[in-house]
């Protein structure tokens, strides 16, 4: 089916954003919102990386006085909080926000304004933390601030409250984004895309979203309890009054462990998509991969105590969590097998995205294996809170999430911009980043085994730690240099890259059916899916159907399991209400750092904003309930 010009022009008129600043503030186009998320997250990744280099320089020399302990403590706290709350989870959400409608052949997300709201709220969280840093009120107790150190007695002032409230921002934003992604994947699939024909990427994003929804409340609860202890003198974490410090740890890690899998699971989606395309054949072990992601999603909620093995909890419980933590290596290991088998089975080529897949395989498996070592409750008593754990967490997060993310970036860059990134500079960036990272972080395993604890701003001379620390610094510098090359490549290619066309790689999934870059309405018709690889479709041409109006914004809603069309749903037009609501919520969150009265006072503007948002914009239907006539 070839769309005629008139059809496309009408679509464009209906779906494009208003021009200028107003369009910028009111857009509900998932692609624009996702782009903002990604640009912000990449900028924050750079800033966090600079903090990391600062710390590495400080640690290159024993008893270094370049950084005061206060500055160092602020640096590692800011680095960790930024990377985990403001970069990793949001950037995965952003990739979902950008790709899910395209991969579903849909015009927009299920809740367009909710997507905009989630970005503005996330941005509020970014500003909360980083403006606080700019005015020297940086939180300085790490990225998980255990009481009583973070309680009212030992952390005077508002630093801990700023940290806790930043989390509230980002978690509400994450909840909004996850609900959006999950609803879209479940209810807006193209006709014919049954759950069995859903690509692994979409499974990964669906599971990650559900995990987010189930785990975020725990951390919102616990950070609110901490603020409440500090602000209105409740006694949740006060032992002398019958509270318990360990409660904080349990609630935090009940969220904290699933969070790292929330970061990893979308990466499995990236890897699956990239391997399938470049191995030129359907992924081996599709069912195994999907089941593995499901089991990781479920198991991840039963592991959190492995962050607390040194707390002195009952031993038999610790042994249970050892077994559970090791068990999660089974689905992860099977995924590695399936991906390697897919590479083996096809005439796989290795442009830059596939290089990142190889980097991921080599690096993440080290992280996974060091994780198996720390999963042992007994051995963890030697390894936790040392540089061994620092090495482990970076190997799994950087190797397991960042490398797939960089690969995904190179892979989908042509779709987003219409241009290809330079292969040569891409290979150089890959070599610098992967090589530099391994050079920088592998020695940390050894440092931990030599007794170097983490979160220390300096260490004594004569411990034998100097050389490895210097190697770690050198590696980190190389990796950051590689990151600069990567960004430079992306920027340069935006204007000078080779035009890519709609489908430069010959991809297997539906996002390659739209133009590059996709227009505001994504795709002219609704594709009909007949296989797991709809763009290849076993050699048959891709079928499409029509029926969505082009004089108003509409999306197609389909059934959850079978993907059969159910009805057409009006899709929200650009609106200022998400921004207004986000401003109201931000004001309430920030003010509640200082006074509890902000909560009732803030409820009024929020109520007003939500009223504006949900104000009905069509009259009540005049027809009665739908009756099926015999």
């Amino acid at each position, binding site marked *: 089916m070839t769309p005629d010009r008139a059809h496309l022009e009408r679509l464009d008129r209906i779906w494009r954003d208003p021009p200028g600043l107003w369009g910028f503030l009111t857009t509900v186009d998932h692609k624009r919102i996702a782009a903002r998320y990604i640009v912000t997250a990449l900028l924050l990744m750079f800033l966090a990386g600079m903090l990391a280099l600062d710390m590495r320089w400080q640690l290159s020399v024993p008893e270094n006085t370049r950084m005061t302990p206060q500055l160092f403590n602020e640096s590692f706290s800011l680095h960790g909080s930024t990377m985990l709350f403001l970069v990793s989870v949001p950037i995965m959400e952003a990739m979902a926000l950008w790709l899910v409608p395209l991969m579903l052949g849909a015009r927009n997300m299920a809740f367009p304004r909710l997507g905009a709201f989630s970005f503005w709220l996330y941005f509020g969280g970014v500003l909360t933390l980083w403006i606080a840093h700019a005015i020297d009120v940086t939180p300085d107790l790490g990225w998980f601030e255990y009481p009583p150190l973070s309680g009212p007695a030992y952390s005077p002032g508002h630093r801990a409250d700023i940290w806790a409230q930043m989390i509230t921002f980002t978690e509400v934003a994450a909840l909004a984004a996850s609900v959006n992604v999950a609803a879209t994947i479940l209810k807006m699939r193209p006709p014919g895309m049954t759950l069995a024909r859903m690509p692994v990427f979409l499974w990964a994003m669906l599971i990650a979203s559900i995990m987010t929804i189930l785990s975020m409340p725990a951390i919102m609860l616990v950070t609110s309890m901490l603020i409440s202890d500090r602000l209105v003198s409740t006694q949740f974490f006060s032992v002398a009054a019958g509270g318990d410090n360990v409660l904080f740890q349990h609630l935090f890690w009940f969220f904290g462990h699933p969070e790292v899998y929330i970061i990893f699971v979308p990466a499995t989606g990236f890897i699956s998509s990239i391997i399938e395309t470049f191995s030129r054949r359907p992924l081996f072990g599709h069912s195994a991969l999907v089941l593995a992601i499901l089991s990781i999603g479920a198991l991840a909620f039963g592991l959190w105590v492995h962050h607390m093995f040194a707390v002195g909890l009952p031993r038999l419980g610790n042994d249970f969590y050892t077994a559970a933590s090791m068990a999660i290596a089974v689905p992860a290991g099977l995924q590695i097998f399936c991906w390697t088998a897919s590479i083996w089975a096809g005439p796989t080529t290795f442009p830059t995205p596939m290089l990142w897949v190889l980097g991921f395989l080599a690096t993440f498996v080290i992280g996974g294996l060091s994780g198996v070592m720390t999963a042992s409750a007994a051995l963890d008593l030697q390894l936790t809170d040392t540089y061994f754990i620092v090495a482990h967490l970076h190997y799994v997060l950087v190797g397991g999430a960042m490398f797939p993310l960089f690969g995904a970036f190179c892979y989908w860059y042509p779709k987003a911009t219409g241009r290809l990134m330079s292969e040569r500079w891409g290979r150089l960036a890959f070599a610098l980043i992967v090589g530099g990272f391994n050079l920088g972080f592998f020695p940390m395993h050894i440092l931990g*085994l030599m007794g170097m*604890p983490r979160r220390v*701003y300096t260490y004594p001379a004569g411990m034998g730690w100097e050389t490895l620390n210097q190697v770690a610094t050198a590696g980190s510098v190389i990796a950051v240099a590689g990151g600069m090359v990567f960004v430079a490549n992306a920027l340069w290619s935006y204007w000078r890259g080779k035009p890519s066309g709609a489908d430069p790689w010959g991809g297997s999934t539906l996002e390659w059916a739209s133009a590059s870059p996709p227009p505001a309405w994504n795709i002219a018709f609704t594709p009909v899916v007949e296989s797991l690889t709809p763009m290849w479709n076993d050699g048959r041409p891709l079928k499409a159907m029509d029926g969505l109006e082009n004089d108003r914004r509409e999306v197609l809603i389909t059934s959850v399991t079978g993907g059969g069309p159910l009805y057409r749903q009006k899709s929200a037009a650009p609106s200022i209400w998400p921004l207004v609501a986000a401003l109201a919520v931000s004001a309430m969150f920030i003010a509640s750092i200082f006074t509890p009265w902000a909560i009732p006072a803030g409820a009024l503007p929020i109520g007003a904003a939500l009223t504006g948002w949900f104000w009905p914009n069509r009259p009540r239907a005049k027809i009665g309930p739908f009756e099926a006539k015999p």
Partner: protein
Amino acid sequence: MRRCLASLPVVLLGGCAGNQSPLAPASDQAFALHSLFVLMMVVCGGVYLLVIAGVVWSLLSARSRRGTNTVPASERGLGRGLYVAAAAIVIGLTVLIVGSFLADRALVAARSEAAMIVRVTGHQWWWRIEYRDPASGRWIETANELHLPVGRTARVELASADVIHSFWVPNVSGKIDMIPGRRNIVDLTPRRLGWFRGQCAEFCGTQHAHMAFDIKVDSQADFDAWLARQNAVVEAAVSNTSSRGAAVFQRVCGSCHSVRGTPAAGRAGPDLTHFADRRSIAAGTLPMSRGAIQGWLAQPQALKPGTSMPAVPLLPADADAVASYLETMR
């Protein structure tokens, strides 16, 4: 370092072991953990090599398939491979889980023979150490240095006075958190004489990096002699300098520090009875020496910024006298 063969890591890493390392075990507990570590390295190292071999093989196979019209690879063969991989992973993990369980049992095996009780309390940023005197039932207090007799199990009771700390002497024991409101217990059975170093392993504030302590494993006779000396009160100052130093000390330092046998009975700071016997000062921050003592007294905030120990402006003669007095406290 990535070319780990089965035995290589143990050999190589043994060379990195020091007096604050789990790779140079000096107690029953640390030996159990070291054995578990070796098992882990063998299994995990082997798995990693298998994975890399698999990836390399798949690269070569992919290259050979490129540009040809060969029949696509058999799905059934790969399917069988999947089951084999699953079985291998489960078996490997089972081995490690059993190993971990056995090591965990070994950590508490000494419990029934616990005889000597030591209480370690974490403060920001130093360690209060108290030995239970079996004869009198009183607590003999010292700070920042732990002595243990070889071959005998010591039961260490861990508490915290302020925030969460963690007791960690890698050569002797894994870390156990010291949590306000909880009393954690760890049993240590040292097997090797020597000096080791421990460090706080849970971020506890500004000077977490400088909260370390020395641990000395003595023969039973040496340990008994040391404990008896700790129990004895300080002898009265003899020389003029040290008696002047004693007077300044009572006046200026006595409200925070205690020295048994003198009026100084402050509880806020470390006990300084027999201070000169110790190997380091300020919780492992500086080695014990006259220069270090004087530097610490003159400007603690320069050496350990954020510490609760204040700089006390003293006349040079008074400062000298106090340092001399401290040096007499053996």
